[in-house]
């Protein structure tokens, strides 16, 4: 059984008097340990697909099953718990919390986990070490470069050992050198068995993925 199974997924938005068909009957299966890249032009529905896969955006119709659980049959809070236990997110603009240090940012997902403070700190340090920032635990986000902030965001996404790591345009705000480093890091994480679903508009990033899915006008091409 695939880790993620989506079938006949539709998502419509009301935009004034018009209805925008963001997704039109998307069906997919993603196995555990796969590194998937979702590509498409702006407005193709790739970010919508990612947000639905990530349990944050209720589809108009269709089913999203993660490890056998139809996540949209769970309530709001049930999906929040599911996200906390199974998903990690890397956002395009990093979205680090400006008043928390790198280590505290990484510890965020563990804030609500039933762990001792020492264990949380240890897990955060390990995650930061994995992304090569073990020496910058106490820096605030504004004391880090763009590439370093992205790494902190990745460390935050993997600190709770999620089943699936979702990344939305992870190199969108990085120069080519940092982009390559971040993609290499994703590859390395995937090599360790991490399932990754990445949305990108950069074709070069697809080379790092096992499989590429191209969306056009809300449908898989």
């Amino acid at each position: 059984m695939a880790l993620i199974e989506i079938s006949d997924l539709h998502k419509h938005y009301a935009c004034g008097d018009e209805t925008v068909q963001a997704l039109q009957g998307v069906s997919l299966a993603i196995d555990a340990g796969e590194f998937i890249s979702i590509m498409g032009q702006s407005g193709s529905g790739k970010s919508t697909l990612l947000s639905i896969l990530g349990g944050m955006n209720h589809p108009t119709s269709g089913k999203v099953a993660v490890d056998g659980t139809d996540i949209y049959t769970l309530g709001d809070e049930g999906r929040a718990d599911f996200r906390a236990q199974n998903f990690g997110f890397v956002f395009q603009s990093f979205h680090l919390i400006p008043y928390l240090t790198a280590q505290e940012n990484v510890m965020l997902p563990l804030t609500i986990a039933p762990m001792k403070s020492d264990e949380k700190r240890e897990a955060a340090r390990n995650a930061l070490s994995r992304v090569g920032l073990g020496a910058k635990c106490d820096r605030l986000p504004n004391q880090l470069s763009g590439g370093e902030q992205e790494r902190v965001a990745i460390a935050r996404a993997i600190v709770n050992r999620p089943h699936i790591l979702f990344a939305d345009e992870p190199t969108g705000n990085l120069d080519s050198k940092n982009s390559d480093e971040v993609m290499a890091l994703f590859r390395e994480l995937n090599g360790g068995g991490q399932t990754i679903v990445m949305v990108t508009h950069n074709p070069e990033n697809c080379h790092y993925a096992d499989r590429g899915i191209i969306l056009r006008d809300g449908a898989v091409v």
Partner: protein
Amino acid sequence: MKLHTISLNNLRRRKAKMAFLTIGLLVGIATIVTLVTLTESMSNDIAHKMDEFGANILITPKSEDLSMTYGGISLGRVSFDQKEIHEADLAKVREIKNSRNILSVSPKVLGGVKLQEKDVLLVGVNFAEELKMKQWWRIFGDTPAGDDEILLGSTTADTLHLSPGDTVDVAGRRLKVAGVLEQTGSQDDSLVFAPLKRAQQLLGKEGRITLVEVAALCAGCPIGDMVVQIAEKLPDAKVSAIQQVVESRLKTLDQFKRFSYGVAGVVFFIGSLIVFVTMMGSVNERTTEIGVFRAIGFRKSHIMRIILLEAALVSLLAGLLGYATGMGAAKLALPFMTESKNAALVWDTLVASGSIGLAVAVGLLASLYPALHASRMDPTEALRAL
């Protein structure tokens, strides 16, 4: 790391905004504390002043005749054949329900006597009780200590050319003038005061009392109730309240209280609005942040706890500082608001705990909607991921 770490770090990071929020609430709390404390202190000051006004309940024999007055109050006709209050009845006054409000009970026996061929009104009093009640009395010489010592009103002393140390015959008994009252501007100036027992003896009224003045002196004393209670204990006496002096002052204070509470209410409402607007602004500013929290699995209750904890901490600080500022302002303003130069500031623990509790309650209430709003944010919209 716990949820409160997020709240504390946010407060530390956004110092200016939090300072604005704290000041907004602080001003409201300080205004309330100042006005409430001023009102309480002024009430206390007035209560203290009322102690100096003397009696405010008068007990006289029931009588159809109204021929003699004392202090502007009709006493009923005083004569030898008139029915009078018995001294034994005095103890009953102390047995009323509100007896703890009674400062002093001052029995008096009145009667006309000849002094150096002149008619004067002799008043038998219990000097200890009388002095407690008439704190404005200033005496040249000494307060009568023995049974054969008397105190003269200033006009009496002038008319009879008597001064402290002189002796005088009253109804066949030689009495010593222990002291003379400084002019009071009241009927006391024309009286002769003698110890109660001696006056009763000289007037032939042993064991009897002409009138009793009761001082029930505090701002909130239920004078009306006490009058009824005394009347029940002494059915043969007429009990009346002397309230006009204090009532005008209490009325003024009551108006000030209403004004204070009105102003405090308005200022506090503005403070609450400031908290609401600032917290709402803060929540809207943190849309992305809240979106991240929700995306990584924070529940709605977690978001609410973060926002409300911040509000509680700021409100607590505002409450503490507001109380201190309010008390400081009250201390500065009190001398200008009272007639007494040494009016005491009332340090009320209820005001302290109440103001801090109120600050936290209002801070939390005003932040409830912003917190709910934050918790209901759609993580996708919050992240603008679409």
